[in-house]
């Protein structure tokens, strides 16, 4: 099971954020000043399991558009309801030392609050900045894909609340078909940069929460396929580098101290008996 989030029809209403917080009893963070942005939650974290991201590429007071897009005359006001991707190859699961992160029967990634001890290694590993640390509870937290609702035969709260059906929930194969059709339709309309993210296995083996984007993934703060790398890629090289250094260090130490043994022996042989 999973999500297909079609950003082309997201209107930034944040109903998903509200529904998520309400169902999961998340208090939310204290408000912070975000200048003239419509984004008032800022990022995904322990209190924001859904976050409506606003990419506000609109002209400044001088009429200049920074990072212009090829659509809408260089201007864009993109919105994306971001969420845990429930990666098929999940970085967080790779590094978790307590097995608090587990794969559910729905193929989603679930963080067991009662097992997590708050080491925060999963936060370091998640390439999407999805997981946050709950200071009050002392554990990491993230979207559960409404595991409790799924068990009750309900769809996740965010998908249920989305008024434009930008967030679609269902079986992954069905969602892939819907996404492919929508992409073909958009491309026919001339949206050349429209693309699916996480639909295939190029990004973390495929995402159970995948997206239709209107621009490059980087614009939405998503690593492209080239940069979507698993933490464990550095495991073997890291240890090999450590072993090589240890060997050189031990040889250096032997060279420094060995002569001590030789000089001690010399002292013994030359000393009067």
């Amino acid at each position, binding site marked *: 099971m999973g999500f297909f989030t079609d950003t082309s029809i997201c209107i930034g209403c944040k109903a998903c954020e509200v529904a998520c917080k309400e169902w999961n009893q998340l208090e939310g963070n204290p408000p912070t000043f975000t200048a003239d942005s419509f984004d008032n939650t800022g990022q995904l974290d322990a209190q924001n399991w859904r976050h409506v991201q606003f990419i506000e590429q609109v002209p400044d007071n001088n009429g200049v558009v920074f990072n212009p897009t090829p659509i809408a005359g260089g201007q864009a006001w993109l919105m994306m309801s971001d969420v845990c991707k429930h990666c098929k190859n999940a970085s967080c699961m790779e590094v978790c030392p307590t097995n608090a992160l587990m794969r559910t029967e729905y193929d989603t990634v679930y963080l067991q609050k009662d097992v997590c001890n708050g080491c925060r290694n999963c936060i370091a590993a998640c390439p999407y900045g999805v997981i946050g640390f709950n200071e009050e509870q002392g554990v990491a937290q993230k979207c559960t894909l409404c595991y409790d609702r799924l068990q009750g035969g309900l769809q996740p709260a965010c998908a249920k609340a989305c008024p434009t059906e930008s967030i679609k929930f269902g079986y992954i194969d069905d969602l892939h078909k819907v996404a492919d059709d929508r992409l073909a339709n958009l491309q026919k309309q001339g949206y050349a940069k429209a693309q699916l993210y996480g639909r295939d296995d190029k990004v973390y083996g495929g995402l159970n929460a995948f997206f239709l984007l209107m621009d490059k993934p980087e614009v939405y703060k998503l690593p492209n396929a080239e940069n979507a790398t698993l933490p464990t890629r550095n495991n073997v090289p890291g240890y*090999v580098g450590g072993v090589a250094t240890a060997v050189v260090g031990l040889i250096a130490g032997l060279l420094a101290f060995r002569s001590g043994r030789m000089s001690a022996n010399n002292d013994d042989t030359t000393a009067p008996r």
Partner: protein
Amino acid sequence: MPPAEHFAAPPEWTWWILGYFFFGGLAGGSYALGTLLRFAGGPRQESAARIAFIASFIALIPCPIFLTVDLGQPLRFWHMLVDTSNGGIVFRPESPLSLGVWALLVFGAFSFVSFLGAIAGVGWFRATNPIARVLRGGAGLVWSAIGTVFGLFICGYTGVVLAVSNQPVWSDSGWVLGGMLLASALTGSAALLLLFAGSRRDVDADTTVRLETADRYFVILEAVLIALFLVSIAIAGTLNKVLGVWIVLWIVVIVGLAAPFLASRVRQWPSVAAPILALLGVLALRALVIFSAQT
């Protein structure tokens, strides 16, 4: 090669982790030097070897405390060892953090026994004399050699923990970070032993000279790895993360690296100056790596 993209959130590993990296490195490095001094050095180096084993265990004591206090749920520290969801032990070789916890546990046993032998050797606690006798023989060599493997692992795996992530700088440094922290731990441990050796009459001048020589070798190794670290993050496009205000810490690192070489040339320096500067450099390097990536 286009620069690496990073959208990961920082794990907020700060002072406790810095403390752990510092003392863990000294514990593992001192143990390795103790082994080398005892089995590669001569009888003259035995006093220094005992100091190394004592220093190793004392430096190790705060490590599990720091690691536990850093947890969001300190009372669940044992979840690192026992699988509370599936039962049995939790041992995950693909997670450097999991491997490190087990290695710390095992190394703790080695360090403690060697500590008992060492304190008997210096006459602080005669009850453990039999341990001291065993550790000076062939069995002791095997024991210390195995302990050294775990000790060196403690020195270096911390770098692998950082590298096995999606954080800027840490994950960009690939294979270098583990080795760099290990070499730095050896430098710091040699400096620590020099610091203690200066205050003890039973460590002769010959041993001090050899420790200084080893220290300089380790500094060269560390400097090479720091250079490789900078090259690797420059290639990834994240070099700017360790510059700016972090230049202050780089200066401390450079002074620490230069100190063992300058010590013999600057006559006015007290004997403790070079080791203290070297230890500050070791601490600064860890602070740099830990904090710069998360800002």
